[in-house]
């Protein structure tokens, strides 16, 4: 039977030769991601019901990235998670990235630190866990009860999703990024357009994207309701993994979609004429060309988050800000996704470009992206943001407005003080 890469991966995890969409499977989890905000209940659950015993073979990556000591409550969350890690320091397969020299946002940390292998099954207590499909893994977000049960059993049930193939064609225009490609698609299919499906991306413009851009594309797939997002791994992926992986590559896990695998549907988009796009409040699917919003005055421009503050995101933003200043009325905030990227920025010319442009450079963390700390919006304020969600209240007051765009568009808008696509 012909299967998609997603079906093959779940079949492998379930110890079966073959699965089909709609079937229920119990799969072995290769990697569990834990953060500060959604782990507290899971830790308590493990203690109360499972003798505080972690499944022996489970690989765990801990990134306390969401709240970072913004107040006493969040300091307690951090302390609890770190205490849990300390208690389980004999669990050999746990990697912990506390606040310090190797810290950062989970979905950038896991690939960066070599925890993602093609063919892996990865779950984490955060909805954007779907990011890791960029490197050929099946990955999806789960809730706290599930995190606790994965900790205890190393397994989780899934209903095998159908796959939705998205074929991108044409030439990548210079002033658009993976963010624009996704916005174009979600603008077309809607925020539930891929509900409980695996979005499988292909086409030459996709293959031409660098790894950071691919990570952006799959990170965003949950915004179309997808269970997971995936790009079949190519040479570039293996080059990226070289010398980075914490666990050895397992060739038997490398799978690809069969040529006649079944898809729920196949959608094609030609992006040759795609202009820079922006998602208006309050849904990521409210997508229009940036050129239609040129009279929207912004109070804040945010370049941050797992979606929009990877090394490449910052390079292109800096390219636009170089020699420019942000508009006087704008708060320009740059928050590199991880400490490694932050260090790069501060030690090379990017840091100077951002500072000369009038930006503040904030440390890594989720912060402004979920309206938790740093860059929180007041009522009536407007932010253009390289993040992934613009729901009401997402970045602050319920009467604030978030417009989602690529880091390029955010940078160009910061300079104008009004929404603008980048002109290169």
């Amino acid at each position, binding site marked *: 039977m012909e299967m998609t890469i997603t079906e093959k991966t779940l079949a492998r995890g379930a110890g079966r030769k073959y699965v089909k969409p709609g079937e229920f499977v119990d799969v072995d989890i290769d990697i569990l991601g834990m953060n500060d905000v959604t782990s507290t*209940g899971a830790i308590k659950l493990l203690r109360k019901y499972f003798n505080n015993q972690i499944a022996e073979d489970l690989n765990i990556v801990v990134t306390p990235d969401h709240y970072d000591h913004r*107040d006493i409550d969040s300091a307690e969350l951090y*302390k609890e998670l770190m205490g849990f890690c300390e208690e389980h320091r004999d669990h050999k397969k746990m990697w912990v990235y506390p606040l310090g020299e190797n810290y950062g946002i989970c979905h950038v940390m896991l690939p960066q630190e070599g925890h993602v292998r093609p063919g892996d099954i990865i779950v984490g207590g955060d909805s954007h866990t779907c990011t890791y499909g960029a490197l050929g893994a099946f990955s*999806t977000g789960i809730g706290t009860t599930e995190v606790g049960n994965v900790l205890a059993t190393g397994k989780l*049930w899934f209903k095998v999703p159908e796959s939705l193939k998205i074929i991108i064609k044409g030439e990548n225009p210079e002033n658009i990024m993976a963010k624009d490609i996704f916005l174009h698609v979600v603008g077309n299919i809607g925020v*539930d357009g891929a*509900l409980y499906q695996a979005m499988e991306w292909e086409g030459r413009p996709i293959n031409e994207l660098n790894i950071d851009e691919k990570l952006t594309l799959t990170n965003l797939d949950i915004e179309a309701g997808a269970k997971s997002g995936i790009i079949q791994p190519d040479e570039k992926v293996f080059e990226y993994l070289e010398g980075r992986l914490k666990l050895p590559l397992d060739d038997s896990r490398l799978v690809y979609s069969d040529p006649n695998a079944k898809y729920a549907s196949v959608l094609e988009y030609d992006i040759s004429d795609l202009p820079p796009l922006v998602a208006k409040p309050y849904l990521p699917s409210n997508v229009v060309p940036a050129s239609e919003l040129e009279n929207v005055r912004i109070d804040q421009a945010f370049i941050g988050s797992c979606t929009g503050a990877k090394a490449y995101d910052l390079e292109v933003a800096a390219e636009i800000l170089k020699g420019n200043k942000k508009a006087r009325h704008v708060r320009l905030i740059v928050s590199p996704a991880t400490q490694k990227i932050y260090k790069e920025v501060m030690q090379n010319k990017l840091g100077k470009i951002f500072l000369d442009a009038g930006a503040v450079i904030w440390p890594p963390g989720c912060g402004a992206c979920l309206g938790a700390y740093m860059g929180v919006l007041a009522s009536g304020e407007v932010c253009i943001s390289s993040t992934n969600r613009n729901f*009401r209240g997402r970045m602050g007051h319920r009467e604030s407005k978030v417009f989602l765009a690529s880091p390029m568009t955010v940078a160009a808008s910061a300079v104008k003080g009004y929404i603008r696509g980048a002109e290169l």
Partner: protein
Amino acid sequence: MKDVIVGESYVVGDHINTDAIIPGRYLGKLASVPVEMYPEILRKYAMEDLDPKYPPFLDKEKRCPYKIIVAGRNFGCGSSREHAQIALKGAGIEVVVAPSFARIFYRNCINGAWFPPTESEEDLSKQIATGDELKIIISERKIVNVTKGEEHSSKPFDLLAKNILDAGGLTQYNLRRI
């Protein structure tokens, strides 16, 4: 899990997201608190950032008069925070009815056994009004609008989802299997 739920309905449209159900600024509230206290802590913030076009979900004393949410498509989209289920449960919600749920939200309802995420055959958010008295019989797949004298049906639960709900959630389900 209760099979028959009777109470007032609160009706919302499509794509009600977890940031509206429980805003990110409250996610730190569960540190150093026993699990049993979670619903009591989060209920006060339930639906705080919902579009103001809807009537208030909570009254001035932060009490919720509703037991049933009737929603449009894709209820619970967004974050994986189980704080959303906990906040609604704490507010007194016993069932959510929608033609479709965001998948992580759906799974969290089942795995935490917070309340049954009941998929209606049709979108009822235009046929039922906030304040209508409903009677929902899960096993019979019936959604009865007592106020309007109308009856609708819901889709069956998948067997595994039902078994997990009946066990009282994934933890209890797993404990029985081990």
